[in-house]
């Protein structure tokens, strides 16, 4: 008898309990509240960082959810959010870097499995790059959507292993930096491929940066780029290297502006982006520490 009464009460209580939690309106209100609080916190931390410009401090650090534990590239949208992706799956997530809210996730149709290493936005198109130089072009999708894509093979798999992709809006071209030159006879310089849009293998050009110039006085033996972005203020290329935990700034012509260690403690930095309001974003793949996106004040 008691069991039956309990069961009836449970069944009656379920809709009520469900109504109290997880309604879209309640969730949206809660989100807005958290976003407002976090924006205020970020402004406060940025002010503190600006007050002491000699010291590089983290202004925010967002821990990634499990599906982004192998977070790789970063690409800024015109809305101020950042698109990122997982290393193994063609699944793109949009994150608001100032509030640490994962806004949506969508994927390439057919749940593509590749060694995806970088992402870039060129107008309405998004490019996802695999380590063998294949480029997947697609449009932004809604939350949970699977989007159609076009694949373009750059044919550079025998030359290089790639991890970096950026879009240079001024010259409407994609930039790919070689992480590892596979041809052992070739000089081991930093090689940047310029690929004007629309993509055509015949129009690819190369800029070489001598490695010794890039290393400079740092104690690195090599410099293997894991991502690059374009400084919105100087239009220089900002390149980070995961293994060396280093950051280098190079002009579009290949002259080294500066190179040095990355700010903060990064276990496996895989993505970089710079916002128009001077925030440097660095994404770290999970490696002992959980995957995260860290924000710093960017000073060109």
């Amino acid at each position, binding site marked *: 008898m008691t*069991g*039956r009464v309990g*069961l009836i009460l449970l*069944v009656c209580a*379920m*809709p009520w*309990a*469900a109504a109290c939690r*997880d309604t879209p309106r309640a*969730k949206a209100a*809660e*989100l807005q509240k*958290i976003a407002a*609080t*976090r924006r205020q*916190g970020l402004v406060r*931390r940025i002010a503190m960082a600006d007050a002491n410009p000699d010291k590089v401090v*983290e202004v*925010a*650090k*967002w*821990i*990634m*959810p*499990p*599906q982004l*534990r192998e977070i790789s590239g970063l690409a800024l949208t015109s809305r101020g959010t950042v698109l990122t992706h997982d290393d193994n*799956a063609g*699944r793109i*997530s949009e*994150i608001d870097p100032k509030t*640490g*809210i*994962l*806004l*949506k*996730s969508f*994927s390439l149709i057919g749940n593509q499995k590749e060694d995806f290493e970088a992402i870039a936005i060129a107008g309405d198109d998004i490019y996802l790059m695999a380590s063998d130089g294949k480029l997947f072009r697609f449009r932004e999708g809604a*939350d*949970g959507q699977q989007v159609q894509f076009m694949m373009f093979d750059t044919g550079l798999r025998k030359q290089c292993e790639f991890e970096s992709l950026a879009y240079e809006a001024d010259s409407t071209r994609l930039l790919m930096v070689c992480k590892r030159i596979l041809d052992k006879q070739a000089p081991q310089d930093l090689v940047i491929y310029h690929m004007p849009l629309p993509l055509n293998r015949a129009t690819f050009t190369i800029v070489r940066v001598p490695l010794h110039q890039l290393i400079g006085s740092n104690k690195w033996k090599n410099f293997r780029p894991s991502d690059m972005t374009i400084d919105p203020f100087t239009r220089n290329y900002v390149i980070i290297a995961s293994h060396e935990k280093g950051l280098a700034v190079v002009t579009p012509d290949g002259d080294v502006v500066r190179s040095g260690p990355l700010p903060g403690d990064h276990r496996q930095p895989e993505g970089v982006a710079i916002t128009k309001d001077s925030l440097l974003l660095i994404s770290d793949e*999970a490696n*002992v520490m959980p995957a*995260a996106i860290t924000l710093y004040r960017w000073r060109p």
Partner: protein
Amino acid sequence: MPVLRELIDVITMKSDRPMRRLVAYYAIVAVVVAILAYFFPGEIARISAKGLGDVPEGPTVLTDALSSSPTAAVSFGPGSLFDVAVTTVLILIGALILMLPVTWVYMSARPSGGQHNQNVVQTLIILPLVVAGIVFIVQNSLALAFSLAGVVGAVRFRTTLRDSRDLVYIFLSIVVGFAAGVQSLAVGAVISIVFNFVLVVTWHYDYGRNMLMPTAAAQWSRPLEALASPTGDHQIPDRDLVLSLTPDKAAALADRFSRVSKRVGKKRKKPRFDSILTVTCDDVPDAQRRVEEVLARMTKRWSLDEIVTNTGKPCEIYYLTRLKKSIPRDVLLTAIHENANGVIATADLETSGEVDREKEKREEKKEKNDGVKV
């Protein structure tokens, strides 16, 4: 539990057939899960197929690693304290729900009248909960996995299972525990359901039974050998067997003893029957007719002893028979099978002569051994 039993009774119209009761149980679980999924889609999706790599839809608040303010801890979405607690409770309940029918099948579908092991039954309930908890904690952490290996390495868990089939149940409980731990209960549910139904079907049809092995029915009739023996001392031949019987079974056996005693006659009198024929079948009248045709033709005398109808398994017909000297056991069994034309499932004949011969051999062996010792 009584409510669940009543519900199953209503759905199965009080049927005792294990297959029907299993289907009813899973139907009830499916309905409850469907209702819960309607009201709490997020929670159910999170525990049923999260491990398969799907991504939660909708905005998710990421953890702020720099802040110690209340908003640093996520108020909702995967990873919050509340959700971790709810998810843990749900996966444990899910594992329990999936393992309950497995224990019922384990206890019911015992081969050849074997007894189930209570320790294994309790292990089947507890083990998946522990495994789920471990996997839930270790998930995605190589460091924790290595630590766990170290801790488990220090604990010795060794036991000898009486039946190798018990090991399969233990493996299943580990699988369900893993599925629950990685929040892929859907996979665990499918595995558990398929496992249960396959087991019930193989048990129902005694799949893989060697024709020379005694059937479950033959196990029952074994004490009757003593009654049919030339000495006819009417002693209970196997004390352990009788002690292992439930009161109902013991009463049924006693009833059969008394009936058979009446039929075989008084002490020291030459037994009228020297063998017991056990036939299992689904259609009793037809099988009875076909078997009795053969018995009339090929035995000296025979008598129908008992018809036992089983729930969920073939019925058993017992005959007391006296074989003709010219017709050996195998010839009779072959003739029964041929005449049955597929109506009977199994036929087995136990003769007192074989039992006596075996006893004589044993005694001879014993004497020899004693001789060597001296």
